[in-house]
């Protein structure tokens, strides 16, 4: 299945900002995060097709995943 992964803000540094690739059935958001070596503690908002999801969310063909870092400063 084809999945598009969009990374935002500091997660783009040293990684491909937007990438569409084939993934095996059963792939989750957590798998995409692990593959890109994104520290889970740094993750804020995660969206699949513009809807808020958790790490264990399973993916389907054509999904667009967006991952934002946690911004906590004031």
């Amino acid at each position, binding site marked *: 299945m084809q999945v598009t992964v969009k990374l935002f*803000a*500091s997660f783009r540094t040293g990684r491909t900002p937007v990438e569409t690739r084939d993934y095996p059935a059963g792939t989750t958001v957590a798998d995409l995060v692990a593959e890109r070596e994104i520290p889970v503690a740094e993750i804020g*908002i995660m969206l699949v097709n513009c809807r*808020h999801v958790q790490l264990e969310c399973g993916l389907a063909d054509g999904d667009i995943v967006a991952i934002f870092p*946690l911004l*906590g*400063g*004031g």
Partner: protein
Amino acid sequence: MSPLKAYLTGHAVDGQVGAGCQMDASLHFDLTFAEVEAAILELGLCPARYQRNRQTISCAGQLTLLRSKVVVIGCGGLGGYIIEELARLGVGRIDAIDPDVFEEHNLNRQLLATFANQGEYKVSAAARRVAELNPAVQLVPHRTAFSAANGRELLTGATVVVDALDNMTTRLELAALCRELGLPLVHGAIAGWYGQLATQLPGEDISAFLSGPGAAGKGVETRLGNPAFTPAVVASLQAAETCKVILGQGTSPAGRMLVLNLLDMEFEEIRL
């Protein structure tokens, strides 16, 4: 017409009343500067200091701002700019909440931090600054950290609450209390070149967008830091949203979060 209103009408020039006249009226009629300002606005006149707001903020809107109370939680990078802009807007009462004193590492971005005021409480500097800017605005300093324990008392009577905190744990407590009390909350957060903005109106819940799966209290700002311009941008957006919520103008911020990337000049809207 009362003697005060006759005095103000008699001294108005082109529909405007200057600060000197407002001060004279305050002394002559034994009223506060803010009370005279309310009388000016009730007459449909404009205190001269607001003349360049022109059609953006009407006299009626200016009076609504004067009668509003905004509670700003945190007086650091975001809070300093927010307080500055709310005072210039003419929000009648601003409650500033922060337990900290200025330190050298605040100088790169915090508007109220100066070379000379290191060691001064941030809320004290905020009160002095607002007194210099606009005598119609009352800044009430609270030298304390916001918490679930004191929050209810601190938010009493608020028109709008502004989140200028620096950690997610307290942000979630603040958002929960605002939901419970039915108060609008204007959230902002920053890290490096990046920022975010969202408004939680009564009946909404933005808490899922304020934290992450790692349940960390801090975000990537611990690694990226915060430069001068990011708090200024996000704080100004928060001040604009606060003004809109108070005046009931513009497109409702409900259900939307704006994510800013100043490095790539990208602005993303997320539907909540």
